[in-house]
């Protein structure tokens, strides 16, 4: 068969010149036919017209500084309004002289988020970064933190317990004894505290003046609600998803019931319930902070949604993965943590980030119970009679800030997909 040449013996011809280079690309993609060419021209003209009129308004004729809104009339965009009100939009009603604190809190939170985004940071260090960062954030926002002894002991018990559970099979005896001691101190301490042997003491850390959560507002509120709502909503959603696939009918039923119940009501109604109805059920004299109640509502709500997404990931795994893990003798916990979840979560990164983006924006619904997140603070900035009549500027500015956050998340999702699938193509 001498007439059949293999690919490398055959002379390689270059593609026709009309298909390559910038002209080739234009021809192929924009002007391949009369219809295509006309569409291209019409759209280009439309885009040009829209862009120039927008730039006219937003840049050329814009007013950048002005004493009051009056001086803006008859001109383009009144960016002077943003210049005047930006501190209120970003920090709401937080005491004016203390506003460096929410600014710092936002920086701390953004640093934490950006640090955690890097895959090389995904190890035990991250837990410490978040513990310290979260503490700083809330200390800056509140100004003073009083930690009751019972809570300290409980945290000791919880940390020790989790350490024993997670490191039990791989840690050196010395390390394991450390976890045991911590858990024991916590447990004994709580018992002594309950028995009244230990006094109702609390650790006071009070470097700044106290600012109650009712005065919080703007970007830090949006960031705290979104970050901590999803930070706790995510593991909660994972547990719900695993529970929904459990072999035990009772656990399965509870999880399905919870998910369906929460998904069946709007977030607004859940927020109203948390803010109006919950206090009715609490014993008199006991109150839970409104901000905390909103956060819990968001956690519950996001948990239910995240659970359904993760269930999709779990169901996409071939049965053989479960069987192989079983056949090796891994127990349920090991199988789930080492084999199933790492694969299931990878599959659901795009829908998961999609939900995260949705929740980031949904936090503005806390308006309904009188919490001033970023969008609502922007809204309030419009109320000033001196600056009445420029809603477009404020909303455009708010939209721009939201867009920065959401677009970063979207790009990060893309990065994560590529990063995690390196070398693992099937």
């Amino acid at each position, binding site marked *: 068969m001498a007439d059949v040449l293999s690919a490398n013996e055959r002379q390689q011809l270059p593609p026709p010149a009309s298909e390559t280079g910038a002209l080739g690309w234009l021809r192929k993609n924009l002007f391949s036919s009369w219809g295509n060419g006309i569409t291209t021209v019409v759209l280009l003209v439309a885009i040009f017209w829209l862009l120039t009129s927008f730039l006219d308004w937003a840049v050329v004729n814009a007013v950048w500084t002005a004493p009051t809104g009056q001086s803006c009339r008859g001109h383009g965009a009144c960016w002077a309004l943003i210049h005047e009100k930006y501190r209120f939009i970003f920090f709401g009603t937080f005491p004016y002289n203390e506003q460096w604190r929410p600014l710092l809190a936002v920086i701390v939170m953004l640093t934490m988020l950006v640090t955690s985004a890097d895959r090389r940071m995904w190890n035990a260090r991250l837990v410490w970064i978040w513990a310290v960062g979260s503490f700083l954030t809330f200390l800056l926002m509140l100004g003073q933190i009083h930690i009751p002894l019972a809570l300290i002991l409980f945290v000791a018990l919880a940390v020790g317990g989790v350490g024993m559970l997670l490191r039990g099979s791989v840690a050196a005896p010395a390390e394991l004894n450390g976890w045991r001691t911590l858990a024991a101190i916590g447990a004994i301490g709580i018992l002594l505290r309950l028995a009244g042997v230990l006094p109702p003491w609390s650790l006071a850390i009070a470097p700044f003046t106290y600012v109650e959560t009712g005065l919080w507002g703007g970007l830090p509120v949006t960031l705290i609600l979104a970050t901590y709502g999803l930070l706790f909503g995510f593991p909660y959603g994972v547990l719900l998803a695993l529970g929904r696939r459990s072999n035990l009918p009772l656990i399965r039923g509870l999880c399905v019931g919870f998910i369906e119940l929460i998904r069946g009501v709007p977030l607004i109604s859940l927020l109203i319930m948390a803010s109006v109805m919950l206090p009715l059920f609490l014993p008199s004299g006991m109150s839970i902070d409104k901000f905390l109640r909103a956060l819990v509502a968001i956690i519950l709500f996001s948990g239910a949604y995240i659970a359904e997404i993760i269930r999709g990931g779990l169901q996409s795994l071939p049965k*053989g993965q479960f069987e192989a893990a079983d056949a090796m003798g891994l127990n349920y916990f090991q199988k789930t943590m080492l084999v199933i979840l790492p694969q299931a979560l990878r599959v659901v990164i795009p829908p998961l980030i999609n939900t995260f983006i949705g929740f980031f924006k949904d936090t503005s619904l806390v308006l309904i119970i009188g919490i001033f997140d970023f969008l609502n603070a922007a809204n309030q900035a419009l109320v000033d009679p001196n600056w009445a009549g420029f809603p477009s500027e404020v909303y455009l500015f708010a939209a721009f800030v939201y867009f920065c956050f959401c677009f970063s998340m979207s790009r990060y999702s893309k990065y994560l997909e590529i990063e995690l699938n390196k070398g693992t193509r099937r």
Partner: protein
Amino acid sequence: MVTTAAHDLSHAPSVIELKGVNKWFGQFHVLSNINLDVKQGERIVICGPSGSGKSTLIRCINRLEEHQRGDIVVHGVALSNDVKNIEAIRRDVGMVFQSFNLFPHLTILDNLTLAPIWVKKTPKREAEEIAMSLLTRVRIPEQAHKYPGQLSGGQQQRVAIARALCMRPKIMLFDEPTSALDPEMVKEVLDVMIELAKEGMTMLCVTHEMGFARAVADRVIFMDRGEIVEQNAPEEFFAHPKNERTKTFLGQILHH
């Protein structure tokens, strides 16, 4: 291949005993009254038409499937709903699947060391040494840091065998290990299995590779419709099948 590996097993202790094992999938009687006694070091090949229950049979031995009546005893441990018993048996019984079932998110080395580290609490360094020596044995040590998706089917199945061996199992179960492979890759996997058989591993192998059965099996079992229809040493089994169903089956797979 005229050499048969059949050897004297009359004094070897039993490691797997199945007594009157029955299983149903819904109304379908998939295993009916199975009795089987496997000696230590014995190599058994199970064959039969599809749907005959052969895969289900070996999957019952490590509890990937639950039998509904009868007793299964592995290494003196009776299979029951007791998780401790099931885990003890799974530590001693390695399994190789038709579709390899390697973990795609872990490197080959991590696939191999996962169970030794977490189930047997082997120190990481030691587990990796064992893993590398086993990869050398299946002749792909250079692939240790790749991911399963980057390997050919035959290589993946050899990794799967090495992964099962990492737990130092006393019994190996093979569930149609070569059925999902391209023809040119079957041999490399069978060679590894033959080597394993020569080292004296107790093996139960569901396969249609009759050459393999002739070369290493001590006993060939033919199953049909959930029953063990016939079992014999390979020479006898292939030369003089007694049951009509066995004859039909062998006629179909040997003369095509």
